Every structure is written in C-alpha cells, then in structure tokens.
C-alpha cells in the first residue's frame, strides 16, 4: 500500500499524525462543549413552545415544552405536572405542530419542582387582580410569610414554653395562671389563623396547555419567569442568577433540582484540609530530596516510594484509607477518646478527616515532583551568592531558594487540589456519601466536625449516572454538576500551567 513515491508517503504520514492530534484535541473540546451544552439548559432559560403531538394513549395532545438536549433522543421535553414527578418526552415523529406563545411561564416551586404553565388568573384577598401584578403579589405574599414566621417565633413560641413550664410544675388545669396562659394562647392562635387565611387568599390559577386549570397558593411559588418575553441580556442575567442559586442552594427533588451547595462545600472543605496536610509534608520531602539528601540507599528508596505512590491506582489508597486509617487508626482513637460512645463509632467510621488524609497521600507525589522542579530551576549562582554573603544552608534555603521556588510549590499544590477535587474512587470508601444530613461545619461545638460524612461533587455525579434519566431534568442537573466540577478542575489546572510557564520563562537562562 505504501509503495507510492516518498513525497506522498511523507504527506500521508504528516496528515495522518496531525489528524490523530486533531482527534485528541477534538475529543477534549467536544467533551467540554458537550458538558457545557447540556448543562446550559439547566441554567439558560429556554424558550417554551406549545407543542401539539400524537400521544399513543391519548391521541392528540398539547403541552408546553422546551427543546431537548443533545443527550436526549427526544425532540421536546415537557416539565412535570404538579405533584406528578414525570416528564413528557416527545419524539420527532409524534410532533404535529409548534407555536411559540408569549405568555407562557416557567414556574419554580419552593420544593424545586419546575412547571411550564400559562398565567390565567391572579387573586389576592380582595379578589381577582390584573395578571401584571404577579410580582407585586409575590412580594406581598413573601412579606406576609415573613410576618407569620416572626409571629410564630416571637409570640407563640414563648407562650408555648410558658404553658409547658406550668404543666411541668403540675399547675392545675383550672389554676388562674394556666387559664390566663391558655386564653392568651388561643387568642394568638386565632390571630395566626387570620394571617394564614390571608396568606391563602394570595393565589394564582395557571393553565396547562390542554386548558386544564392548576390553582396554586403564591406562597408555594418561588419564582416565575417568562422566557419567551426575555431578550438575550435578561436571559444571561437569569442564567447567572440560576448559576448562583445552583452553587448556593440545597439539592431538591432527590438531586433533580435545586443546587449543589452541600457537595461544593464538602469538596472545598475536604480539599482545603487535604492541602493543609499535603503542603508541608510535600515541601519538606522535596527540600530533603533536593537539598539535603545524601546519595544513599534511603534517598533512592524515598525516590522509588514517591514514584510508586504516583502509580498506585487511586482505589488502592481508598482501600488503605478504609483498612488502616478508618478501622485501625480511627478504631484506636475511638477506644482511647470516645469509649463512652462505643459501639457507635466516632472516628472509626468513614469521615471527612480520613478522606482528606487519604487524598493527601494520593496527591503527595504531585506536590513533591512539582516542588523539586521549582527547586531545580533556582540558578546555582543565586545560591552561591547567598553562601558568599555568609548565609548558612538553612538561611539560603529559607531566604533565597524557597521564595524563588515558590511558584513551583504553588503549582504543585494547585495541581494536587485539582487532582483531589476530581478524584472519586477512594472517596466512595472513606467518607463521601450521596446525601449527608448535616454539613461538616455548623454552629454546635466543636464547629468543625472532622468525623462527619460529607457530600462531594464527583460522588454526586457518580451516583447520578445510575439514577439519571436520559435527557430531562435530572440529567440536566447532573450535567450542571459536571460543568461545575470541570470548571473548578480546569481553572485550577490553567492557573497551575500559567504559573509554571511563567516560572520556566523567568529562569530559562
């Protein structure tokens, strides 16, 4: 086959190898764009269409729907009906007609449910109001809810406590103090009832595409937007707003809606703890290897260790973390310090601290290698200058070598953080869970709970792969999580690459 003239052979090889480079490049970009494209429908307010289609059961039907993502085989996706957790997927061959109505709204409920509905009628306590007053009424309703909340906390709760104390003291049911308290309690309850009734007066009637009405109290509605009336700018603002909600809110609807705050928080906290452990250890080890190490068996042993740690599959670190850190060390700590709680484990079960420590071991080679590279690039002349001025080795390292090598060290730490943020396998074994009831930091002593299990972005994605429906709300949510993780990891890597290339340029000669 390759019997053609050399020139052709050469251009064939060049174009083929360049095509292979292109494949890798395209794979990388495609991956990023795919995640971006699919997560965008979670953030970007898509236009909503009125789609007429043929349903296998019902026959002709109409729904409000948005265009489906690339990850789905359907053409259109319609959001759930109220209190029904299903999504309607419409395929190309079913579709008969589409129009784009102006007044259709995307309604987000307080429990995270999203629905596409047309605004039909608006009520406040006095009766029907103009539909344009929706935002005003929502504000009033929210204010009323605030008032009710304050009323409950400030008025009812103390009364409740008073009655409780009286009961505990054994006061007779018809004692004057008790009677007075009960009467006041009933008065307050009546007031509350009034407020609640007032709140219920604020309601909206929405209309599904098929004309069916859906009344909802305004207090259950979190946000209403009209994507079809928005321009690109307001859509971008809305997308930013949603991104903010995504990173600051709790997951809702069993990881189908809401945000990823606990997972983001868990990831960041674990990574911070890890870098607190790995940075000093890695830097010291690198300094030893590069500056102090005598050429002996120990040094070469340490080097072999570092090289091998880098090559060990991450799950093996997880196994080590579970067997040694959690069961052996953690079990020992429990025996010593928390014996009153046994057999319930405190540190003897997977938790935040063990995860951070496991990750620190995993990323140790990254920090060491990168720090060593930084140290290697410190010009010999600078050291000699320092020695010539009478500095000791320690002083030279502290005042001359380390400051110059600091970008290399930083690169290493950043790369370690990026690696730890994206690594999932060991975490499954040593403490990351798909749902943790409490954050590892809260207001109760000792504030930072190192023994708690935590949520992690990567673990959330792993879990989502098994439960996510193709296309649709939950896969949007998972892709949005992927996007966030990719954003974190890429940003860290780009920073590291940037610092490194700057460092290389500075000490190139």
């Amino acid at each position, binding site marked *: 086959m390759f019997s*053609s003239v*050399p020139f*052709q052979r*050469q*251009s*064939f090889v*060049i*174009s*083929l*190898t*360049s*095509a*292979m*480079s*292109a*494949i*890798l*490049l*395209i794979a*990388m970009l495609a*991956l990023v764009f*795919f995640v971006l494209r699919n997560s965008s429908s979670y953030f970007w307010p898509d236009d909503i269409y009125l789609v007429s289609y043929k349903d296998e059961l019902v026959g002709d039907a109409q729904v409000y729907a948005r265009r489906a993502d690339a990850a789905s*085989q359907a053409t259109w996706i319609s959001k759930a009906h109220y209190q029904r957790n299903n999504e309607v997927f419409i395929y190309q061959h079913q579709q008969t007609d589409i129009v784009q109505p102006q007044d259709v709204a995307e309604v987000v409920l307080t429990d995270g449910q999203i629905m596409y509905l047309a605004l039909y009628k608006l009520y406040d306590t006095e009766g029907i109001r103009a539909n344009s007053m929706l935002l005003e009424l929502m504000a009033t309703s929210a204010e009323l809810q605030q008032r009710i909340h304050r009323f409950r906390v400030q008025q009812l709760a103390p009364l409740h406590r008073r009655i409780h104390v009286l009961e505990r003291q054994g006061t007779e049911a018809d004692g004057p103090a008790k009677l007075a308290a009960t009467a006041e309690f009933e008065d307050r309850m009546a007031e509350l009832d009034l407020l609640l009734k007032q709140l219920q007066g604020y309601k909206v009637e929405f209309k599904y595409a098929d004309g069916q009405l859906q009344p909802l109290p305004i207090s259950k509605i979190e946000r209403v937007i009209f994507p079809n009336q928005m321009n690109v700018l307001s859509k971008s603002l809305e997308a930013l707003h949603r991104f903010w909600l995504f990173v600051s809110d709790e997951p809702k609807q069993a990881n189908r809606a809401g945000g990823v705050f606990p997972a983001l928080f868990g990831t960041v906290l674990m990574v911070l703890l890890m870098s607190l452990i790995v940075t*000093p250890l890695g830097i*010291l*080890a690198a*300094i030893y290897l590069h500056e*102090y190490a005598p050429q002996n068996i*120990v040094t070469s042993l*340490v080097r072999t*260790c570092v*090289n091998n*740690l*880098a*090559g*060990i*599959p*991450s*799950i*093996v670190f*997880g*196994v*080590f973390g*579970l*067997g040694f850190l959690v*069961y052996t060390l953690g079990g020992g700590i429990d025996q010593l310090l928390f014996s009153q709680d046994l057999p319930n484990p405190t540190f003897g079960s997977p938790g935040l601290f063990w995860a951070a420590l496991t990750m620190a*071991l995993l990323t140790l080679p990254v920090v060491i290698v990168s720090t060593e590279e930084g140290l290697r690039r410190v010009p010999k002349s600078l050291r000699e200058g320092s020695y010539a001025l009478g500095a000791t080795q320690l002083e030279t390292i502290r005042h001359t070598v380390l400051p110059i090598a600091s970008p290399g060290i930083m690169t290493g730490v950043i790369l370690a953080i990026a690696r730890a*943020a*994206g690594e*999932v*396998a060991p975490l*499954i*074994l040593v403490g990351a869970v798909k749902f943790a009831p409490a954050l590892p930091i809260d207001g109760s002593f000792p504030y930072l709970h190192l023994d708690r299990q935590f949520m992690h972005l*990567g673990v959330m*994605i792993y879990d989502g792969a098994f439960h996510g429906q*193709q296309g649709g709300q939950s896969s949007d949510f*998972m892709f949005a999580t992927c996007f966030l993780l*990719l954003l974190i*990891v*890429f940003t860290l890597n780009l920073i590291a690459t940037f610092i490194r290339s700057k460092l290389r340029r500075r000490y190139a000669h």
Partner: protein
Amino acid sequence: MHRLVSVSSWLILLTLASLIWQLVSNSLPLFATPKVSLQEQVLLPAGKIMHIGDLAQNGFVMVQQTSDDEKDCPLRFLRLDALGHLVEFGMRANACQTKLMVHSFQGQTYLFSISREGVATLENLWVADNTIETSQLLSFAINKQYQYKDIKLSMSRDQLIVATKGQSDVWHSYWTEMDGAQDYQEHNLGRADFVLPIAAAGRIVLASGNNLKVLGKGSQLLQDISLEADVTQMHLLSSKRSFVLSFSEHNWQQFSLFNKGGELGFHPTYRPDINAATSLLVTNQTRGAILFADQHNRLHFYNSGTGEVLRQQPLTRAVDYVQWHNGGLYTAADRLVSIWSVEGMSQLTSLKSLFAKNWYEGYRAPAYVWQSTVADGQQPKYSLVPLIIGSFKAAILALFIAIPIATSAAIYTAYFAHERLRNWLKPAIEMLEAVPSVIIGFIAAVWLTPISDSFLLPLMVFILLIPVGFYLMSFVQRRLVGGLPKRMRWHWELLFASLALLLLMAIVFGQAGWLNTQLTSWLDWQGDKSTLVVALALGVAIAPTIYSVAEDAIHGVPQQIKNASFALGATRLQTLQNVVLTVSLPGILSGITLGFGRAFGETMILLMVTGNTPIAEWNLVSGIRALTANLAIELPEAQPASDLYHVLFFSALLLFAFTFCINGLAEWLRIRLRRNYQDV
C-alpha cells in the same frame, strides 16, 4: 531544620510501608490453614447421645437414658449454666421401644419418633423459660409389622421423607407433606446397605455394594449408577444437595445435584485423593467446608469447591458423635463432650479456590465465579479470575484506541509540528488528562451507552476510513496545497486535518442510520456493544498519559542526530523512521506501559460504563467487571475481618503489586531511553 526535613522523608517511607503492611496483613488470614482447638470438655450423664445443640448459643444436649429392663428410657435435657457446668433442666418419659431420631432443620430442632404401636410423630423442640417445650407438627400411623432397626429422616420446607429398615433388612419409605393435607405414600425399597432420603431434592438414594440408585417420589428409578468399589459410608452434606460416598478402598467421592443434559440428577464431582476411611463427617456449607474424621482419629479439612484437603489435624481420641454449629465443633466420645473452636475458616480459601476453577454445588462443571452475595445456605464464590480478566480486557480495549491515536499525535507534536504550535497544542491535549474520570464515565454512561447500538458500526467505518481517506488525500494533496496562499503551505496541517476529519465525521455520522441498518444485516453482529463504549471512554482517559510521555521522548531526541540524518540526505520521514523512532522507542513503550497501568487501575469509568458482570471469558465483547470496580462495589458493604473483606484486600494487594511492576517496567524503559540519548 535538617532533622525536620529528614523526618518528612521517613514519613513517606513509613506511609508506603504501612500501606503495604496493611494490604498484606489483611490478606494473610486467607492463607492461614484452618484448625480446631479444644475449648472445654464436659461430662454427660450415662446414656445415648441424641442431640448436641450449639451450647455456646443457648443450645441443649439431649440424652436418652438406657435401662436394663428395656421398659423406660427417659429423655434428659441438659444445658450449660452461667458457670459452664452442664445442668439438667428437663426430662421426658419415653418407652424404650419407641424409636427416636433428632433432626435439625433451618436452625430448629425436631424430634421424630415411632412408637411400638406404629404411630409416627414429628415434634418441634425448643427451650423457653428454662423448660423444654414441644409442639406436635405431624402424626400418622404407619405399618407396625416392621420391627424397626433403623430410621432415616429428611425434611424440607414442604415435605418429610422417612425411611425405615425392618426386620428382614427391607427398607420402606414414607413421603408426607409437611402441612399434613395429604395421606402419606409408602413404598417398599427392597434391601440396601445404605439409604439416604433427601427431601430438599425430592429423592432417595440407595447404595448396596457397588450400585447406587436414585429414586423419585413415586419410587420410580431415576438414576442407576454402578460404582468402582463398594460403598462403606454415605453422608449428606448440610446444603442437602450433595452427598459423599466412602468406598471400601479407602477413598471417597462427592456427588452433587445439578442439571446435566437437561436432566436434574446426582453426578460425581471431586474424588479427593485421600487414603483414609471416613467415619464421621460434618459440613458447613456456607463456607464450602467439610470436616471429617478418619479411622486414624485425624480430622481433615476439606474444601468442597476445590476438592482439596487443606489440613489434617490429629485428635487425641476416637470420636463417635460430632456436630458443627456456629459456636464451634462438638465431638463426643463415650460420655465426654469436647467443645472445639474452629479457627482460620476464612481460609478454606486457598490459592486454588481464588485462582483455579472451582466445582461449586449446583454447577455443571468447575468454573470461575465471583458471587459474593448468595442465597441463604449457599457458598459465596470468590474466584478472582473473572475480575483479573475483566481488568485486562478493559485495559487492552482501551489500548486499542489509545495507542494509535496517542503515539501518532505524539509524533506529530514532537517531530512535525512547528515549535509555536507545539507550545499550545501540548498543554491543550494534556488538559484532557485533567478531566476527572468521573465526568468521562458519566458522559459515556448517560449518553454513549444508550446510543451505542446505533453509532457503533458507523464509528468502526469512520475509524477504517481515516487511514484510507488520508491516504487517498495524499495523492491530491500536492495540487491542493499548491493552490493555497504561500504562507499557508507549511505548518497548517493540523487545521486542514481537523477540517477533513470533521467533514469525514459529518459524512459518516450523517448517514449513521442507513449505515447501521446496512452493516448490521451484513455483519450479523452479536454481542455487547457497550464494550466499545468502554474502549472509547477509557481510551480517551489514558491517551493523554501515553501522549505526554511519548511526546517528551520523541522531542528529547537530540537535534544533532536529526541534523546528521538530514545531512546524509534522508527525508523527514526517513529520519523519523530510522533515527528518531529508533532512539525514542523505549520512551514510547514506557508511555504505553504507563497508560496500560493507568487503564488497569482506573475505577470510575469502568464502574460506570461496564455492566459490572464478572465473566471469565477473554472474548472482548462479553461482560466486564474489573478488580478496581469490584473493590468500589463490594468493600463498602464488606464486614471488617470477614472472608470477603480479606479477599478484597488481597485483590487490592494484587492491584498494587501489578501496578508496581508496571511502573517499574516503565521506569526501566525510561532509563534505557536516557542511555539511548547519551549513546548518540
């Protein structure tokens, strides 16, 4: 400072050492040989031992007192008190002529009796408030003409089989339903040396001389097997689906119930090479273990899955009764009951049971099986072979994709590409390495797998078309390039190649539906198409590793030898072939080795994309469960210090050792590469 610094390096050594120690120390229990050690001995009152329960867990002993006048033979019930003394807590009158038999089934104790009048009764026995309680389950009258010499009994959830041996050594069987709804069926079985009713299988096994007969419910002959030697003993194993025969030639044979040629029957499996006549035998089928004592008072530990005798342990004296409960092994000789603890059971797992084919109960033939969670009373199967094969298969699949792409890309970037292009192309491709594998796995699992059916074949066409397309293009390339503006003639290959590639992709995948139907009918493809998704996803994940190392190796080839080659008149391609690749080959191989190691150790992609079905086949399109994914699936559920836990740690040790070797190989290749650089 010096001290602090050197402490840190000792800490690293310590970490690696404790990692290895942890893996090894948690795997070692697997290879300890099991043994029994005497815990305590208690003395029973005179009489015949009918039953020894699990004394450590509140069980009781039942002894039938014998009397000289052969009239009154009461049953005495004894238990251990708080001080460890055996005390009597119950008694029951019983006529000597009533034949008794105690049977244990699903943790319950049953007493079966046939009175002189021929009334058969089945009772449940249990202890409540320190008294013995009974409740009658079944009672029926059987033929009283037979003076029973022996009774055999077997029960399952819904039926009871009783076999009795009458005066003239003729056996009769009685089948009855446990709910007592129907009358029993009686059959004359004729004479036999040994009879073994097996209710769970609905069979009765008869052995006389060297002949073995298996009868079904209506006493019809199901199997007639002639053996090589005369049967001297017949034991049912606790799973109730296997039995063991001892022969007069001092060896024995295991039989199991399984489907062979469409017929469910008992078939011979292992025939262990032991020169001993077994006398007593107990089994613990959840562990696949059989313990038997031979005529020389030795206790043998036998693994029914591998057919190995793992240990022989001499006992101090002869034993004439033996029971094996969770709390320990109970043996009795005369009136002395010895309670033994059985240690190191978590290994009956020998190397053979982990790496060789095991003949598990109910299997047609020996097989490699990983099945850690099984139904009650069955033996978990821990063969590492399917997992190791799975890991290798996945890694090989990934290399198929990664090697051509990564090495070609490395050649282009390091050799052909302009330095300016290389400066951004290399970091860009290496960015792929930073993508968390969980994201690659997620995309592959959520998007690629569902559509793999429709894109697999078009993708293959695409892959085949790339070299063909570019080869054809090389003929017209000169003319095409000639038409370009002058400054675009050099170093723009990447852009044009990308465009050509995208064009080809658009053509092939635009016609994907048509191609797919055409090719499917033409090729008649069978198999799991998701393995291609594994290859793609894992290939993309490891390609940057190979690329990065190979690129460094090629780029590191000293400029002067390239120049020397050019000076001798070699073209760029000839220089590449004869000089650059030759010198940098160890480096490229080192990259491939590292990539292989990374694919072997990758967890998330395999966990999310493969079906995680452990299948021990080298067929690349059958299911895959990798060692790593297996750890992630099983370890969170494994009880510390259980068999499974140790097996999993052992598999982690294997992973560690393997990647250790792979990394060592890669390191060695790198040293070779450095020597190559210096030599030239």
